[in-house]
């Protein structure tokens, strides 16, 4: 399990190593065709800042080779904002006095139908808060079943589950799981996640092993930028990615580094801020470090960043996302989990990508590939 690995990596030492990387370290990393985590640290270090243009060119080259002139499109759907956790930065915080919604079956279907009106979305990400009693595995299974007539590729972003629960959801057509570690800083993790199941660092960080062991095809990882030193946090994610790729080589991986905005939730202010240049640097570094990992930018990022980065390293994007349950059709005014910064229509995102010579790919999976699991379910 990854908890055994990460506990041997000292946070402060890692930070120090990143900050003491030199020009020569950066040049060495950029000259390699296969980089290790040390090289990754060099590429995200301040010493690499003058090499942003060269990194962009390398990142573009590797992205083109592996993904071509395409961007994979997905859309999230929040089916509940009920949550027993109290993550200090999150709009769904248990003590927030907001209307809690758990979409009913007919509402979920109406949302799916509304999404299909926005564009030819085929890759659906089902998102929930953490409420296992009211919106647990059976509820998710139902949401997946209801989604099958509308979408070929079904992914979930929910609380970490047991391995057998992931296996159970695979039988309902689930192809991928996204789970953000938020931060790999174990000592401070509990500060941000003081209560509920989410407060247990080890349960969350080992969730990825459990997904892979259950045979989940695609696993999405993420660090929430704004909690701890982002360089160290993303380096830990790089270690994690390499660990997973080595141990679970049949699984495909994606990475996210969503940036928290100062205004979110009114109360919590991010501890660290990542500039646009730094976001670009870390994106390029990730691509040079791992030519094959899927790099995803959500609508949290503003239009000009998404447009420009699409050609340089990013491979997956959402569009026209609503981050509130029922936001597409049923309850257009309920509370968002976070504020989005790119509120363009799907057609406008598509047009912008096309203008940059990129084909937005909506369908890149076929539900028939999940037949084995479906057969088992019968």
């Amino acid at each position, binding site marked *: 399990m990854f908890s055994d690995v990460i506990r041997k990596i000292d946070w402060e030492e890692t930070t120090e190593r990143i900050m003491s990387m030199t020009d020569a370290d950066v040049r060495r990393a950029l000259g390699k065709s296969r980089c290790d985590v040390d090289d990754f640290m060099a590429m995200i270090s301040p010493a690499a800042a003058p090499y942003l243009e060269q990194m962009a060119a390398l990142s573009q080259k590797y992205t083109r*080779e592996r993904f071509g002139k395409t961007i994979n499109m997905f859309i999230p759907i929040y089916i509940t904002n009920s949550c027993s956790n109290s993550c200090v930065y999150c709009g769904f915080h248990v003590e927030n006095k907001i209307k809690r919604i758990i979409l009913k079956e007919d509402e979920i279907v109406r949302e799916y139908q509304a999404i299909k009106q926005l564009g030819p979305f085929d890759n659906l990400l089902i998102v929930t808060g953490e409420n296992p009693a009211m919106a647990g595995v059976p509820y998710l299974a139902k949401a997946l079943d209801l989604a099958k007539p509308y979408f070929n590729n079904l992914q979930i972003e929910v609380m970490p589950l047991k391995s057998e629960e992931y296996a159970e959801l695979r039988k309902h057509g689930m192809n991928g799981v996204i789970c953000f570690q938020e931060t790999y800083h174990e000592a401070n993790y509990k500060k941000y996640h003081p209560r509920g199941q989410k407060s247990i660092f080890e349960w969350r960080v080992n969730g990825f092993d459990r997904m892979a062991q259950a045979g989940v095809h695609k696993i999405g990882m993420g660090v929430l930028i704004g909690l701890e030193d982002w360089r160290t946090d993303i380096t830990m994610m790089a270690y994690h990615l390499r660990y997973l790729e080595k141990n679970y*080589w*049949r699984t495909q991986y994606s990475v996210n580094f969503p940036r928290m905005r100062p205004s979110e939730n009114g109360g919590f202010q991010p501890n660290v801020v990542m500039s646009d240049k730094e976001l670009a640097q870390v994106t390029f570094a990730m691509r040079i470090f791992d030519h094959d990992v899927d790099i995803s930018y959500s609508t949290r990022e503003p239009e000009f960043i998404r447009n420009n980065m699409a050609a340089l390293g990013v491979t997956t994007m959402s569009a026209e996302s609503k981050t509130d349950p029922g936001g597409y059709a049923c309850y257009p005014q309920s509370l968002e989990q976070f504020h989005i910064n790119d509120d363009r229509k799907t057609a406008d995102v598509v047009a912008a990508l096309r203008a940059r010579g990129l084909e937005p790919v909506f369908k890149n999976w076929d539900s028939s590939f999940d037949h084995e699991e479906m057969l088992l379910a019968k």
Partner: protein
Amino acid sequence: MDDKLVIAGKEFSSRLFLGTGKFSSNEVMAKAIEASGTEMVTLAMKRIKLSDSSDDMLQHIAKPNIQLLPNTSGVRNAEEAVFAAKMAREAFGTNWLKLEIHPDPRYLLPDPVETLKATEQLVKDGFVVLPYCQADPVLCKRLAEAGAATVMPLAAPIGTNRGLVTLDFLQAIIEEATVPVVVDAGIGAPSDAAKAFEIGASAVLVNTAISVAANPVEMAVAFKEASVAGRRAYLAGLGAQSADFSAQASSPLTSFLND
């Protein structure tokens, strides 16, 4: 010159096969297909809405002179491949299949064990199977014995544009082949394609080198011409490559024979 390629009884005038991933638009892809003169085009079933015959990508590929070659990219074992193949046969109305089983999503390298297993089953089920495989001469023999219509050994990992990295093995495969050998994956430049034909390949499959080129349509033409040139050179019989025979003034190894 009558030099038709025959696969499963069907004749092809062009020996250049095209892949359809990674293009900047379906329009560019369609133009590249046309410019290349290809008659065999592979398409990933995962990209196509199988229940929708008006699917835009499919519309841009399916033409009367084109043999559709659906591929199973995305499946991870023989069982999934066989199931997907049946879906593809129904959706595309063809029993031709490019069998791709690459459980490793990083390098997309084919699983030899599952590929052989699936080939055996699919041949029994009436498919014309063109399996993507490692440049492994023994595996290629086994696939041909199992009834594969061709073998499609890789030149280099998919998308790398690294050229004929597996050259020595490709030569061994071609030398022993009883079915057409289609060199697939990794061909990065028209010169690579020409070289593959010069060593006796029956056909080549190109995708990334065309789709990510600055001008994909022009690059498709370049590959078409290189394929014709390479094939012609092969049929014409390349002159032996001369080792450096001339410069040897004395004969240090054999001078004793002159004594």
